[in-house]
């Protein structure tokens, strides 16, 4: 009983079933251009474009977000192209109430000016990077901290062991935080650690991560018992790698979508805190939409000076809306199923030819017993 096994690494198929002598040699078809390569590039930038284009609303969101991001870069690196700060400033006196220097929107000042003759368009533009940065920082912190805790709590939750206690502890702390309305908790935190931009950010960060813990843990719990995770485990993949490669990749999709939507929510929350007057002080060198609204609402009656408060509010509205629309479309981009379908749907190309190269070795012998008119497909061979 010494069957000679094939040496490893060599292609085994040819040794198994000898080619059927009666079969005529398959006609040599010149190999078609590699289909796989074309497919692979298509899921890049072009694929992203096609997927987004299939969903017009999210495509609008994508364009607006891109535009906002470019605008923010301009404000940071070339502010004088976008805003003229202080150009109209003559007195430098704030909080002085309405003066004769307020103008409704005009060509020179598209959003009008305020009592100190500040150009509101410039102020809104200058606030853009601040607001975006704050939104990303808070949501990003929550994503990393909350998401990490959620991964750990969901993946290692064997009851009765150390990991189980850790998981329970994380979840109970999360529950405590979730039991408070986060806005009220954030306000209370700001009240205790003091007013200011950084303080407000810390307060929201501390109240924001529990949502991610809950979301990620739920997703991990759903994914970790799926057969492909067991299959990876059976293949000898280590637990940490199963978590970071197999589970994380499948959890990512809803989390990224939630994150994108959340940036808008965080902006609103932060603006609310500023509006109440404990966030970014206004006027300041780095204005913020919420504090602008707060300031104008206090000092300029909306019935007369409607432009002062409308445009910062519109800025928040447009930013939040565009992020929400983008988040909706990202779901399609991140899911391989819909991505491939949508990326292919827009392509006006002839269908790829079958790549008929070498005649494959087939498990024919067992099937030859079937009557010839039954047309059993044994693997795609004529």
């Amino acid at each position, binding site marked *: 009983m010494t069957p000679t096994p*094939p040496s490893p690494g060599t292609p085994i198929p040819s040794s198994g079933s000898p080619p059927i002598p009666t079969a005529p040699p398959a006609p040599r078809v010149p190999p078609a251009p590699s289909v796989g390569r074309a497919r692979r590039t298509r899921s890049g930038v072009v694929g992203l474009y096609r997927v987004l284009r299939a969903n017009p609303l999210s495509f609008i969101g994508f364009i607006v977000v891109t535009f906002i991001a470019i605008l923010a870069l301009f404000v940071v690196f070339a502010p004088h192209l976008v805003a003229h700060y202080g150009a109209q400033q003559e007195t430098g006196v704030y909080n002085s109430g309405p003066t004769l220097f307020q103008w409704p929107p005009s060509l020179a000042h598209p959003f009008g000016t305020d009592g100190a003759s500040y150009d509101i368009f410039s102020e809104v533009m200058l606030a853009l990077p601040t607001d975006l940065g704050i939104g990303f920082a808070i949501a990003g912190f929550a994503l990393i901290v909350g998401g990490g805790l959620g991964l750990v709590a969901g993946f290692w939750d064997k009851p009765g062991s150390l990991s189980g206690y850790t998981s329970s502890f994380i979840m109970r702390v999360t529950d405590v935080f979730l039991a408070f309305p986060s806005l009220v908790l954030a306000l209370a935190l700001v009240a205790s650690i003091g007013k200011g931009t950084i303080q407000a950010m810390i307060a929201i960060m501390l109240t924001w991560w529990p949502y991610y813990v809950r979301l990620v843990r739920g997703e991990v719990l759903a994914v970790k018992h799926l057969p492909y995770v067991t299959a990876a485990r059976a293949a000898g*993949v280590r637990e940490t790698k199963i978590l970071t490669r197999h589970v994380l990749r499948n959890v990512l999709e809803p989390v990224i979508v939630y994150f994108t939507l959340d940036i808008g929510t965080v902006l609103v929350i932060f603006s609310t805190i500023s509006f109440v007057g404990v966030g970014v002080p206004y006027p300041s060198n780095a204005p913020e939409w919420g504090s602008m609204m707060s300031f104008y609402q206090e000092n300029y009656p909306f019935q007369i000076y409607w432009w002062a408060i409308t445009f910062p509010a519109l800025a928040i509205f447009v930013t939040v809306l565009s992020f929400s629309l983008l988040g909706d479309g990202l779901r399609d981009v991140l899911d391989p199923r819909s991505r491939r379908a949508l990326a292919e749907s827009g392509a006006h190309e002839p269908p790829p030819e079958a790549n008929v190269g070498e005649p494959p070795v087939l498990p024919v012998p067992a099937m030859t017993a079937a009557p010839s008119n039954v047309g059993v497909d044994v693997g795609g061979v004529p």
Partner: protein
Amino acid sequence: MTEPVLKVENLSVDYDVGAGVFHAASNVSFTLPPGRVVGIVGETGCGKSTLGQAIPRLLPEPPAVIRSGKIIFQGTDLVPVPKNKLPMVRGTSIGMIFQEPLNSLNPAFRVYDQIAESIQIRHWREIGDLPMFQPGPTPFDYSHRELPKAEQVLTKPFLPGEKVQEAARHRLVSRDDYKREVLDYLRLVRINDPETILHLYPHELSGGMRQRIMIAMTLSQKPTLLIADEPTSALDVTIQAQVLTLMKELIEEVHASILFISHDLGVVAEMADDLGVMYAGALVEIGPIAEVFKSPRHPYTKALLRAIPSQYKTDGPLASIPGNVPNLSRLPSGCSFHPRCPLAQAICRADPPPALPDTPHAAACHFSDQVASLP
């Protein structure tokens, strides 16, 4: 003679859930010699899959608990192995094909990435970057080498000897190296046009193709022992025939030791050398397949064989076994088959049947000799 690849001794697995303790496997013992295919058959819920997953310790513990017994894989008991050492055993030593090909591939990765991951694990173990359980460049070849004792290997990370490293000296470094290997294994499982399949996602493949990818993934690790847990149950008959033909050819080509779990006696008859029959968590009969089919020694096996519909039967009801499979948390007293057994006597209700005798063809029944002689 040669040491068995796998020896299961008195294995008992329970599921300890709120509703009670389910004895999914009780006192299962069998031996898998190198190069043989052992088939395990039984009704739904009789503990076949539990047994298959318990061997590489894949069952989630808890709720599953290995109450007693030994799983001796190449001379090493796997039951006391700590959890963080288990990945060493899985994959390159014990490979597994699952019963749900539709869900057993990660939907987020392309076919290439899935197979390349398996190849990478095997390769890293061969060249010594990862510890492995059983060193050897040709794990299928049992006849030329002595199987190493692996107990030390499991207790501390093991670097394979010079011989192994030399055999694997051609490091797979570039993507092309991996691609070549992946293509080899795709061709091995008779995938048509593997160059294209490489870049597809699992949802773009048919069920039979996914199962073949699954088989390619498992084989690419060159496992010493292959556990096939109903590899064809989710497929339709045409695809089932393809996959079985493929597996049969692969068995002949690679001469692997396989534990083949199925509920289909016809499939097992096609594939296996030995046949084990499970009922209510216990292995009631085991023996060379021809003997088991010809002269079953357990009434359950006899009834099962009688229940196979014969091809030309046109009238009357099909034969069946009366009654139901007992609840695994409340097994009947004595022999668990006695409520459905036509031959049950008083002793069957009172005493559990004797343990499987140490003969090639054994059955756990008080009257196994009489059953064999019945028509």
